[in-house]
Protein backbone atom coordinates (compact mmCIF):
# COMPACT_ATOMS: atom_id res chain seq x y z
CA UNK A 1 0.00 0.00 0.00
CA UNK A 2 1.19 3.51 -0.83
CA UNK A 3 1.61 5.40 2.42
CA UNK A 4 3.04 8.54 0.84
CA UNK A 5 2.83 9.89 -2.68
CA UNK A 6 4.11 13.07 -4.25
CA UNK A 7 2.99 14.34 -7.64
CA UNK A 8 4.94 17.04 -9.41
CA UNK A 9 6.28 18.39 -6.12
CA UNK A 10 8.05 21.69 -6.74
CA UNK A 11 9.48 24.44 -4.57
CA UNK A 12 11.13 27.63 -5.70
CA UNK A 13 13.20 29.91 -3.51
CA UNK A 14 13.09 33.10 -5.52
CA UNK A 15 14.19 32.05 -8.99
CA UNK A 16 16.00 28.96 -7.79
CA UNK A 17 14.18 25.67 -7.89
CA UNK A 18 15.15 23.72 -4.77
CA UNK A 19 12.87 20.83 -5.69
CA UNK A 20 11.43 20.63 -9.16
CA UNK A 21 8.67 18.39 -10.43
CA UNK A 22 9.54 15.38 -8.30
CA UNK A 23 7.21 12.38 -8.34
CA UNK A 24 7.78 9.84 -5.61
CA UNK A 25 6.02 7.22 -3.56
CA UNK A 26 6.72 5.25 -0.43
CA UNK A 27 5.09 1.92 0.38
CA UNK A 28 3.97 0.95 3.86
CA UNK A 29 6.75 -0.69 5.87
CA UNK A 30 9.51 0.36 3.48
CA UNK A 31 12.79 2.01 4.38
CA UNK A 32 13.56 4.49 1.63
CA UNK A 33 16.87 6.28 1.34
CA UNK A 34 17.08 9.80 -0.05
CA UNK A 35 20.55 10.65 -1.29
CA UNK A 36 22.26 13.22 -3.41
CA UNK A 37 24.97 15.88 -3.30
CA UNK A 38 24.72 18.84 -0.93
CA UNK A 39 22.08 21.29 -2.10
CA UNK A 40 20.23 18.64 -4.08
CA UNK A 41 16.96 19.47 -2.29
CA UNK A 42 16.75 16.52 0.08
CA UNK A 43 15.99 18.52 3.22
CA UNK A 44 13.66 20.78 1.24
CA UNK A 45 11.72 17.70 0.21
CA UNK A 46 11.50 16.70 3.89
CA UNK A 47 10.29 20.19 4.74
CA UNK A 48 7.62 19.85 2.07
CA UNK A 49 6.45 16.47 3.32
CA UNK A 50 6.36 17.62 6.96
CA UNK A 51 4.62 20.89 5.96
CA UNK A 52 7.32 23.26 7.12
CA UNK A 53 7.07 24.42 3.49
CA UNK A 54 4.20 24.16 1.05
CA UNK A 55 4.88 22.83 -2.48
CA UNK A 56 3.95 25.12 -5.33
CA UNK A 57 2.88 23.49 -7.49
CA UNK A 58 2.52 19.87 -6.47
CA UNK A 59 0.44 17.53 -4.37
CA UNK A 60 1.47 15.33 -1.45
CA UNK A 61 -0.78 12.52 -0.36
CA UNK A 62 -0.59 10.55 2.87
CA UNK A 63 -2.50 7.27 2.84
CA UNK A 64 -4.38 8.47 -0.22
CA UNK A 65 -5.44 11.74 1.39
CA UNK A 66 -4.26 15.09 0.03
CA UNK A 67 -2.29 16.76 2.83
CA UNK A 68 -0.89 19.67 0.83
CA UNK A 69 -1.18 22.95 2.74
CA UNK A 70 -1.90 21.47 6.15
CA UNK A 71 -0.10 22.84 9.22
CA UNK A 72 2.96 21.05 10.66
CA UNK A 73 1.22 20.07 13.91
CA UNK A 74 -1.69 18.58 11.97
CA UNK A 75 0.67 16.61 9.76
CA UNK A 76 2.38 15.32 12.87
CA UNK A 77 -0.90 14.21 14.41
CA UNK A 78 -1.82 12.45 11.18
CA UNK A 79 1.21 10.24 11.66
CA UNK A 80 4.26 11.81 10.00
CA UNK A 81 7.12 12.60 12.38
CA UNK A 82 10.56 13.96 11.61
CA UNK A 83 13.99 14.72 12.97
CA UNK A 84 16.20 17.61 11.91
CA UNK A 85 19.52 17.83 10.11
CA UNK A 86 20.84 20.27 12.71
CA UNK A 87 19.37 18.99 15.95
CA UNK A 88 16.41 20.97 17.24
CA UNK A 89 15.93 19.86 20.79
CA UNK A 90 14.34 21.73 23.68
CA UNK A 91 17.79 22.48 25.04
CA UNK A 92 16.99 23.61 28.57
CA UNK A 93 14.24 21.09 29.23
CA UNK A 94 15.08 17.72 30.74
CA UNK A 95 15.47 14.84 28.29
CA UNK A 96 12.27 13.31 29.66
CA UNK A 97 10.22 16.46 28.98
CA UNK A 98 11.55 16.66 25.42
CA UNK A 99 10.03 13.30 24.64
CA UNK A 100 6.90 14.01 26.69
CA UNK A 101 6.02 16.95 24.43
CA UNK A 102 5.82 14.59 21.48
CA UNK A 103 3.75 12.10 23.42
CA UNK A 104 1.34 14.72 24.79
CA UNK A 105 0.71 16.62 21.60
CA UNK A 106 1.73 14.53 18.64
CA UNK A 107 -0.30 11.38 19.06
CA UNK A 108 -3.66 11.34 17.31
CA UNK A 109 -5.41 9.71 20.24
CA UNK A 110 -5.70 11.47 23.57
CA UNK A 111 -3.75 9.76 26.31
CA UNK A 112 -3.86 10.02 30.08
CA UNK A 113 -0.89 11.59 31.89
CA UNK A 114 0.08 8.23 33.36
CA UNK A 115 0.07 6.63 29.92
CA UNK A 116 2.14 9.48 28.51
CA UNK A 117 4.70 9.04 31.25
CA UNK A 118 4.86 5.33 30.55
CA UNK A 119 5.26 5.79 26.79
CA UNK A 120 7.96 8.38 27.37
CA UNK A 121 9.90 6.14 29.73
CA UNK A 122 9.62 3.21 27.31
CA UNK A 123 10.88 5.28 24.40
CA UNK A 124 13.84 6.55 26.40
CA UNK A 125 14.62 2.94 27.19
CA UNK A 126 14.23 2.08 23.49
CA UNK A 127 16.76 4.67 22.32
CA UNK A 128 19.02 4.04 25.31
CA UNK A 129 18.65 7.34 27.16
CA UNK A 130 16.95 6.10 30.34
CA UNK A 131 19.92 6.85 32.56
CA UNK A 132 20.08 10.50 31.47
CA UNK A 133 16.36 11.27 31.43
CA UNK A 134 16.62 14.02 34.05
CA UNK A 135 19.47 16.09 32.70
CA UNK A 136 18.91 19.09 30.40
CA UNK A 137 18.92 18.01 26.76
CA UNK A 138 21.71 20.44 25.90
CA UNK A 139 24.13 18.44 28.05
CA UNK A 140 23.83 15.33 25.89
CA UNK A 141 26.43 14.35 23.29
CA UNK A 142 25.49 14.97 19.65
CA UNK A 143 24.82 11.26 19.13
CA UNK A 144 22.47 11.23 22.10
CA UNK A 145 20.76 14.44 21.04
CA UNK A 146 20.02 12.76 17.73
CA UNK A 147 18.64 9.75 19.59
CA UNK A 148 16.56 12.11 21.65
CA UNK A 149 15.07 13.59 18.47
CA UNK A 150 14.24 10.09 17.30
CA UNK A 151 12.56 9.32 20.62
CA UNK A 152 10.59 12.58 20.49
CA UNK A 153 9.48 11.77 16.94
CA UNK A 154 8.51 8.22 17.91
CA UNK A 155 6.54 9.57 20.87
CA UNK A 156 4.05 11.04 18.41
CA UNK A 157 3.24 7.47 17.35
CA UNK A 158 4.10 7.99 13.67
CA UNK A 159 3.37 5.67 10.79
CA UNK A 160 5.97 7.44 8.71
CA UNK A 161 9.25 8.70 10.13
CA UNK A 162 11.52 11.15 8.31
CA UNK A 163 15.13 10.93 9.49
CA UNK A 164 17.35 13.79 8.31
CA UNK A 165 21.01 12.74 8.51
CA UNK A 166 20.72 10.70 11.65
CA UNK A 167 24.33 9.59 11.35
CA UNK A 168 26.10 12.76 10.25
CA UNK A 169 28.83 13.74 12.67
CA UNK A 170 28.78 10.46 14.55
CA UNK A 171 31.82 8.26 15.04
CA UNK A 172 32.09 4.66 13.86
CA UNK A 173 30.67 3.09 17.00
CA UNK A 174 27.83 5.57 17.13
CA UNK A 175 26.98 4.91 13.48
CA UNK A 176 26.73 1.20 14.21
CA UNK A 177 24.46 1.92 17.18
CA UNK A 178 22.31 4.23 15.06
CA UNK A 179 21.95 1.50 12.44
CA UNK A 180 20.82 -0.95 15.10
CA UNK A 181 18.28 1.59 16.27
CA UNK A 182 17.06 2.02 12.71
CA UNK A 183 16.58 -1.71 12.33
CA UNK A 184 14.60 -1.78 15.57
CA UNK A 185 12.37 1.05 14.35
CA UNK A 186 11.77 -0.83 11.15
CA UNK A 187 10.96 -3.90 13.23
CA UNK A 188 8.16 -1.90 14.84
CA UNK A 189 6.54 -1.62 11.42
CA UNK A 190 7.21 2.08 10.99
CA UNK A 191 7.84 3.30 7.46
CA UNK A 192 11.05 5.32 7.21
CA UNK A 193 12.46 7.83 4.74
CA UNK A 194 16.05 8.69 5.55
CA UNK A 195 18.43 11.28 4.19
CA UNK A 196 21.94 10.02 4.71
CA UNK A 197 25.46 10.49 3.47
CA UNK A 198 26.83 7.45 5.27
CA UNK A 199 26.70 5.03 2.32
CA UNK A 200 27.29 1.96 4.41
CA UNK A 201 24.10 2.68 6.33
CA UNK A 202 22.06 3.53 3.24
CA UNK A 203 23.13 0.43 1.36
CA UNK A 204 22.60 -1.84 4.35
CA UNK A 205 19.28 -0.66 5.63
CA UNK A 206 17.27 0.69 2.70
CA UNK A 207 14.85 -1.26 0.54
CA UNK A 208 14.88 1.41 -2.09
CA UNK A 209 16.83 4.57 -2.80
CA UNK A 210 15.81 7.83 -4.46
CA UNK A 211 18.58 10.06 -5.80
CA UNK A 212 18.10 13.81 -6.10
CA UNK A 213 20.36 16.17 -8.02
CA UNK A 214 19.72 19.88 -8.54
CA UNK A 215 16.20 19.40 -7.23
CA UNK A 216 15.34 16.67 -9.69
CA UNK A 217 14.94 12.96 -9.23
CA UNK A 218 17.65 11.39 -11.36
CA UNK A 219 17.44 7.79 -10.25
CA UNK A 220 15.44 5.40 -8.15
CA UNK A 221 15.91 1.74 -7.36
CA UNK A 222 17.28 -0.92 -5.08
CA UNK A 223 20.65 -0.26 -3.41
CA UNK A 224 22.26 -2.59 -5.93
CA UNK A 225 20.81 -0.69 -8.89
CA UNK A 226 21.81 2.65 -7.45
CA UNK A 227 25.34 1.55 -6.63
CA UNK A 228 25.89 0.47 -10.21
CA UNK A 229 23.96 3.28 -11.92
CA UNK A 230 26.31 5.26 -14.15
CA UNK A 231 24.41 8.48 -13.66
CA UNK A 232 24.48 8.25 -9.87
CA UNK A 233 28.15 7.39 -9.81
CA UNK A 234 28.82 10.39 -12.02
CA UNK A 235 27.00 13.00 -9.93
CA UNK A 236 27.26 11.64 -6.43
CA UNK A 237 29.00 8.44 -5.53
CA UNK A 238 32.15 9.00 -7.57
CA UNK A 239 34.23 6.39 -9.40
CA UNK A 240 36.29 5.25 -6.43
CA UNK A 241 33.44 4.48 -4.12
CA UNK A 242 33.11 1.07 -2.62
CA UNK A 243 29.48 1.49 -1.85
CA UNK A 244 27.69 -1.54 -0.59
CA UNK A 245 30.65 -2.89 1.29
Amino acid at each position, binding site marked *: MRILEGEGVTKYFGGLSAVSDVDFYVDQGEVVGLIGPNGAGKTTLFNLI*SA*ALVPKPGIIKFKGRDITGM*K*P*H*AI*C*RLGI*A*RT*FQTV*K*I*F*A*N*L*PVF*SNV*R*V*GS*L*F*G*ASKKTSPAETGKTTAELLEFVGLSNVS*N*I*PAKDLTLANQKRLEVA*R*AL*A*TKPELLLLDELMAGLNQTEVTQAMDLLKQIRGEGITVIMIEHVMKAIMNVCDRIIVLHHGQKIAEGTPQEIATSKKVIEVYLGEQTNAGS
Partner: protein
Amino acid sequence: MDVSGINSKKLITPGIFIVVLALLAALPFYASLYGVVLITSILMYIILTVSWTIFSGTTGYLSLATAAFFGVGIYTSAILAGQIPIVIVVILGGLVSFGVAALVGALTLRLKGVYFAMFTLGLVELIKHSLIWYEIKFTGTRGRFVIVVDNETIFWIMLGIFAVLLITTYIIRNSKYGLALQAIGEQEEAAAHSGVNVTMLKVVTFAISALFMGAAGAIMATRWTYIDPGIAFNINLSFLPVLMAIFGGMTQLFGPFLGATIIAYLEEILLTKFPYYYMLIFGVILSIVILYLPQGISGLVQKFWRRFPGGKSANT
Protein backbone atom coordinates in the same frame (compact mmCIF):
# COMPACT_ATOMS: atom_id res chain seq x y z
CA MET B 1 14.53 16.64 39.30
CA ASP B 2 13.89 15.17 42.71
CA VAL B 3 10.48 13.57 42.85
CA SER B 4 9.88 14.24 46.56
CA GLY B 5 10.72 17.88 45.87
CA ILE B 6 7.95 18.15 43.34
CA ASN B 7 5.36 16.53 45.57
CA SER B 8 6.06 18.66 48.63
CA LYS B 9 6.18 21.77 46.42
CA LYS B 10 2.81 20.88 44.93
CA LEU B 11 1.26 20.90 48.38
CA ILE B 12 3.17 23.79 49.92
CA THR B 13 2.68 26.33 47.14
CA PRO B 14 -1.15 26.36 47.11
CA GLY B 15 -1.12 26.27 50.91
CA ILE B 16 0.95 29.43 51.12
CA PHE B 17 -1.23 31.15 48.54
CA ILE B 18 -4.44 30.41 50.45
CA VAL B 19 -3.02 31.74 53.73
CA VAL B 20 -1.63 34.88 52.07
CA LEU B 21 -4.91 35.50 50.26
CA ALA B 22 -6.93 35.14 53.44
CA LEU B 23 -4.64 37.54 55.31
CA LEU B 24 -4.84 40.03 52.46
CA ALA B 25 -8.61 39.80 52.15
CA ALA B 26 -9.00 40.94 55.75
CA LEU B 27 -6.54 43.81 55.26
CA PRO B 28 -9.08 46.68 55.25
CA PHE B 29 -10.16 45.62 58.77
CA TYR B 30 -6.75 45.99 60.40
CA ALA B 31 -4.63 48.20 58.14
CA SER B 32 -4.68 51.94 57.61
CA LEU B 33 -6.22 53.45 54.51
CA TYR B 34 -2.72 54.22 53.28
CA GLY B 35 -1.80 50.57 53.70
CA VAL B 36 -4.81 49.45 51.68
CA VAL B 37 -4.05 51.89 48.87
CA LEU B 38 -0.36 50.91 48.84
CA ILE B 39 -1.15 47.21 48.71
CA THR B 40 -3.63 47.87 45.90
CA SER B 41 -0.83 49.44 43.83
CA ILE B 42 1.52 46.58 44.61
CA LEU B 43 -1.16 44.08 43.62
CA MET B 44 -1.63 45.93 40.35
CA TYR B 45 2.07 45.63 39.57
CA ILE B 46 2.06 41.96 40.53
CA ILE B 47 -0.89 41.33 38.22
CA LEU B 48 0.81 43.09 35.31
CA THR B 49 4.10 41.30 35.92
CA VAL B 50 2.72 37.83 36.48
CA SER B 51 0.37 38.05 33.51
CA TRP B 52 3.25 39.33 31.36
CA THR B 53 5.31 36.34 32.49
CA ILE B 54 2.58 33.84 31.54
CA PHE B 55 3.23 34.62 27.90
CA SER B 56 6.61 36.31 27.50
CA GLY B 57 8.41 34.52 30.32
CA THR B 58 7.82 31.10 28.82
CA THR B 59 7.71 31.64 25.05
CA GLY B 60 10.50 34.21 24.97
CA TYR B 61 8.39 36.56 22.84
CA LEU B 62 9.13 39.93 24.41
CA SER B 63 5.80 41.74 24.56
CA LEU B 64 5.84 45.48 25.30
CA ALA B 65 2.09 45.75 24.82
CA THR B 66 1.24 45.63 28.55
CA ALA B 67 0.38 49.34 28.59
CA ALA B 68 -1.90 48.87 25.58
CA PHE B 69 -4.01 46.16 27.21
CA PHE B 70 -3.99 47.97 30.56
CA GLY B 71 -5.18 51.10 28.75
CA VAL B 72 -7.92 49.24 26.90
CA GLY B 73 -9.21 48.17 30.31
CA ILE B 74 -9.04 51.76 31.57
CA TYR B 75 -11.07 53.08 28.66
CA THR B 76 -13.63 50.31 28.91
CA SER B 77 -14.10 51.39 32.50
CA ALA B 78 -14.22 55.09 31.62
CA ILE B 79 -17.01 54.43 29.16
CA LEU B 80 -19.04 51.92 31.17
CA ALA B 81 -18.45 52.60 34.90
CA GLY B 82 -21.50 53.95 36.66
CA GLN B 83 -23.89 52.40 34.18
CA ILE B 84 -23.42 48.78 35.20
CA PRO B 85 -22.03 47.13 38.37
CA ILE B 86 -18.30 47.65 38.75
CA VAL B 87 -17.53 43.92 38.86
CA ILE B 88 -19.10 43.51 35.43
CA VAL B 89 -17.17 46.53 34.17
CA VAL B 90 -13.94 44.87 35.29
CA ILE B 91 -14.84 41.58 33.63
CA LEU B 92 -15.75 43.43 30.43
CA GLY B 93 -12.48 45.37 30.59
CA GLY B 94 -10.66 42.06 30.70
CA LEU B 95 -12.71 40.58 27.87
CA VAL B 96 -12.21 43.57 25.58
CA SER B 97 -8.45 43.34 26.18
CA PHE B 98 -8.63 39.61 25.52
CA GLY B 99 -10.33 40.32 22.19
CA VAL B 100 -7.85 43.01 21.16
CA ALA B 101 -4.92 40.77 22.10
CA ALA B 102 -6.35 37.79 20.23
CA LEU B 103 -6.74 39.91 17.11
CA VAL B 104 -3.33 41.53 17.40
CA GLY B 105 -1.72 38.23 18.32
CA ALA B 106 -3.20 36.41 15.34
CA LEU B 107 -1.81 39.11 13.07
CA THR B 108 1.63 39.60 14.60
CA LEU B 109 2.74 36.49 16.43
CA ARG B 110 4.50 35.28 13.30
CA LEU B 111 7.00 38.08 13.91
CA LYS B 112 10.07 36.92 15.75
CA GLY B 113 12.41 38.48 18.26
CA VAL B 114 12.96 42.20 18.13
CA TYR B 115 10.32 42.70 15.43
CA PHE B 116 7.60 41.44 17.71
CA ALA B 117 8.87 43.60 20.58
CA MET B 118 8.90 46.71 18.39
CA PHE B 119 5.43 46.00 17.07
CA THR B 120 3.95 45.59 20.52
CA LEU B 121 5.61 48.81 21.61
CA GLY B 122 4.13 50.52 18.57
CA LEU B 123 0.72 49.12 19.44
CA VAL B 124 0.62 51.22 22.62
CA GLU B 125 1.22 54.40 20.62
CA LEU B 126 -1.13 53.32 17.86
CA ILE B 127 -4.08 52.84 20.19
CA LYS B 128 -3.21 55.98 22.13
CA HIS B 129 -3.14 58.22 19.08
CA SER B 130 -6.20 56.62 17.51
CA LEU B 131 -8.04 57.39 20.74
CA ILE B 132 -6.83 61.00 20.85
CA TRP B 133 -8.00 61.43 17.28
CA TYR B 134 -11.36 59.83 18.04
CA GLU B 135 -11.97 61.81 21.21
CA ILE B 136 -11.16 65.16 19.60
CA LYS B 137 -13.04 64.42 16.41
CA PHE B 138 -16.19 62.86 17.85
CA THR B 139 -16.52 63.70 21.54
CA GLY B 140 -14.72 67.01 21.45
CA THR B 141 -12.76 66.32 24.64
CA ARG B 142 -9.38 64.89 25.52
CA GLY B 143 -10.11 63.29 28.85
CA ARG B 144 -12.90 61.52 30.67
CA PHE B 145 -14.07 61.40 34.26
CA VAL B 146 -14.42 57.97 35.76
CA ILE B 147 -16.96 57.25 38.47
CA VAL B 148 -15.35 57.03 41.91
CA VAL B 149 -15.36 53.74 43.74
CA ASP B 150 -14.31 53.47 47.39
CA ASN B 151 -10.82 52.22 48.18
CA GLU B 152 -11.92 49.01 49.90
CA THR B 153 -13.94 47.90 46.89
CA ILE B 154 -11.04 48.67 44.56
CA PHE B 155 -8.78 46.65 46.84
CA TRP B 156 -11.06 43.63 47.00
CA ILE B 157 -11.63 43.58 43.27
CA MET B 158 -7.89 43.87 42.65
CA LEU B 159 -7.35 41.01 45.09
CA GLY B 160 -10.00 39.01 43.25
CA ILE B 161 -8.22 39.52 39.92
CA PHE B 162 -4.96 38.58 41.62
CA ALA B 163 -6.48 35.36 43.01
CA VAL B 164 -7.93 34.31 39.66
CA LEU B 165 -4.62 35.11 37.98
CA LEU B 166 -2.76 32.97 40.50
CA ILE B 167 -5.02 30.02 39.92
CA THR B 168 -4.79 30.46 36.15
CA THR B 169 -1.00 30.69 36.21
CA TYR B 170 -0.76 27.67 38.45
CA ILE B 171 -3.04 25.63 36.20
CA ILE B 172 -1.21 26.64 33.02
CA ARG B 173 2.22 25.92 34.52
CA ASN B 174 1.19 22.47 35.64
CA SER B 175 -0.72 21.54 32.52
CA LYS B 176 0.59 20.14 29.29
CA TYR B 177 0.18 23.59 27.77
CA GLY B 178 2.74 24.96 30.20
CA LEU B 179 5.22 22.43 28.87
CA ALA B 180 4.26 23.28 25.30
CA LEU B 181 4.85 27.00 25.95
CA GLN B 182 8.29 26.19 27.28
CA ALA B 183 8.93 24.04 24.23
CA ILE B 184 7.96 26.97 22.00
CA GLY B 185 10.39 29.16 23.91
CA GLU B 186 13.14 26.59 23.42
CA GLN B 187 12.59 25.57 19.79
CA GLU B 188 9.38 26.66 18.14
CA GLU B 189 9.84 24.72 14.90
CA ALA B 190 10.48 21.47 16.71
CA ALA B 191 7.44 22.09 18.91
CA ALA B 192 5.26 22.49 15.82
CA HIS B 193 6.62 19.29 14.30
CA SER B 194 5.97 17.48 17.57
CA GLY B 195 2.26 18.20 17.28
CA VAL B 196 1.96 21.48 19.21
CA ASN B 197 -0.47 23.89 17.55
CA VAL B 198 1.96 26.74 18.10
CA THR B 199 -0.04 29.56 16.50
CA MET B 200 -3.19 28.77 18.45
CA LEU B 201 -1.35 28.30 21.72
CA LYS B 202 0.59 31.56 21.37
CA VAL B 203 -2.47 33.61 20.47
CA VAL B 204 -4.63 32.18 23.27
CA THR B 205 -1.91 32.59 25.89
CA PHE B 206 -1.18 36.14 24.73
CA ALA B 207 -4.90 36.93 25.00
CA ILE B 208 -5.19 35.33 28.47
CA SER B 209 -2.31 37.46 29.72
CA ALA B 210 -4.04 40.55 28.25
CA LEU B 211 -7.29 39.62 29.99
CA PHE B 212 -5.73 40.21 33.41
CA MET B 213 -3.97 43.39 32.31
CA GLY B 214 -7.27 44.78 31.03
CA ALA B 215 -9.15 43.82 34.18
CA ALA B 216 -6.51 45.52 36.33
CA GLY B 217 -6.77 48.64 34.16
CA ALA B 218 -10.55 48.69 34.44
CA ILE B 219 -10.50 48.79 38.25
CA MET B 220 -7.48 51.10 38.49
CA ALA B 221 -9.30 53.69 36.35
CA THR B 222 -11.88 54.16 39.09
CA ARG B 223 -9.16 55.24 41.49
CA TRP B 224 -7.70 57.82 39.15
CA THR B 225 -11.11 59.48 38.57
CA TYR B 226 -9.79 61.42 35.58
CA ILE B 227 -8.04 59.83 32.63
CA ASP B 228 -6.92 60.79 29.15
CA PRO B 229 -5.14 58.71 26.50
CA GLY B 230 -1.72 59.83 27.80
CA ILE B 231 -2.46 58.60 31.32
CA ALA B 232 -4.20 55.42 30.19
CA PHE B 233 -1.55 54.35 27.69
CA ASN B 234 1.54 55.14 29.75
CA ILE B 235 4.48 53.42 28.08
CA ASN B 236 6.24 52.98 31.45
CA LEU B 237 3.71 50.30 32.25
CA SER B 238 5.04 48.30 29.30
CA PHE B 239 8.59 48.30 30.64
CA LEU B 240 8.04 48.05 34.39
CA PRO B 241 6.59 44.50 34.29
CA VAL B 242 9.59 43.38 32.25
CA LEU B 243 11.98 44.90 34.78
CA MET B 244 10.05 43.44 37.70
CA ALA B 245 10.04 39.99 36.13
CA ILE B 246 13.79 40.12 35.43
CA PHE B 247 14.42 41.47 38.92
CA GLY B 248 12.42 38.68 40.53
CA GLY B 249 13.59 35.96 38.18
CA MET B 250 11.34 34.02 35.86
CA THR B 251 12.31 30.41 36.42
CA GLN B 252 10.18 30.10 39.55
CA LEU B 253 6.48 30.84 39.91
CA PHE B 254 7.15 33.19 42.84
CA GLY B 255 9.91 35.14 41.05
CA PRO B 256 7.68 37.70 39.34
CA PHE B 257 5.74 38.20 42.61
CA LEU B 258 8.88 38.91 44.51
CA GLY B 259 10.13 41.26 41.82
CA ALA B 260 6.89 43.20 41.53
CA THR B 261 6.39 43.46 45.29
CA ILE B 262 9.92 44.62 46.04
CA ILE B 263 10.15 47.12 43.19
CA ALA B 264 6.66 48.55 43.76
CA TYR B 265 7.36 48.95 47.49
CA LEU B 266 10.83 50.31 46.83
CA GLU B 267 9.40 52.83 44.41
CA GLU B 268 6.91 54.00 47.01
CA ILE B 269 9.54 54.32 49.76
CA LEU B 270 12.15 55.96 47.57
CA LEU B 271 9.62 58.32 46.04
CA THR B 272 8.46 59.56 49.45
CA LYS B 273 11.78 59.47 51.32
CA PHE B 274 14.20 60.50 48.55
CA PRO B 275 12.14 62.23 45.87
CA TYR B 276 15.24 63.64 44.17
CA TYR B 277 17.45 60.58 44.22
CA TYR B 278 14.68 58.07 43.67
CA MET B 279 15.50 57.22 40.05
CA LEU B 280 19.23 57.12 40.75
CA ILE B 281 18.98 54.69 43.66
CA PHE B 282 16.43 52.65 41.78
CA GLY B 283 18.73 52.40 38.76
CA VAL B 284 21.72 51.35 40.84
CA ILE B 285 19.78 48.58 42.59
CA LEU B 286 18.43 47.30 39.30
CA SER B 287 21.87 47.29 37.67
CA ILE B 288 23.36 45.34 40.56
CA VAL B 289 20.63 42.72 40.38
CA ILE B 290 20.92 42.29 36.62
CA LEU B 291 24.73 42.10 36.79
CA TYR B 292 25.14 39.81 39.77
CA LEU B 293 21.88 37.89 39.99
CA PRO B 294 21.10 36.63 36.50
CA GLN B 295 18.38 34.39 37.93
CA GLY B 296 16.89 37.34 39.80
CA ILE B 297 15.97 37.46 43.47
CA SER B 298 14.22 34.11 43.29
CA GLY B 299 17.46 32.55 42.07
CA LEU B 300 19.16 33.88 45.19
CA VAL B 301 16.40 32.54 47.40
CA GLN B 302 16.77 29.13 45.78
CA LYS B 303 20.51 29.14 46.30
CA PHE B 304 20.02 29.61 50.04
CA TRP B 305 17.19 27.11 50.09
CA ARG B 306 19.49 24.47 48.62
CA ARG B 307 21.98 24.88 51.43
CA PHE B 308 19.37 23.84 53.96
CA PRO B 309 19.52 20.12 54.63
CA GLY B 310 15.71 20.02 54.39
CA GLY B 311 15.51 21.90 51.11
CA LYS B 312 15.81 19.00 48.76
CA SER B 313 14.60 20.78 45.66
CA ALA B 314 18.22 20.97 44.51
CA ASN B 315 18.36 19.68 41.01
CA THR B 316 20.59 20.03 37.91
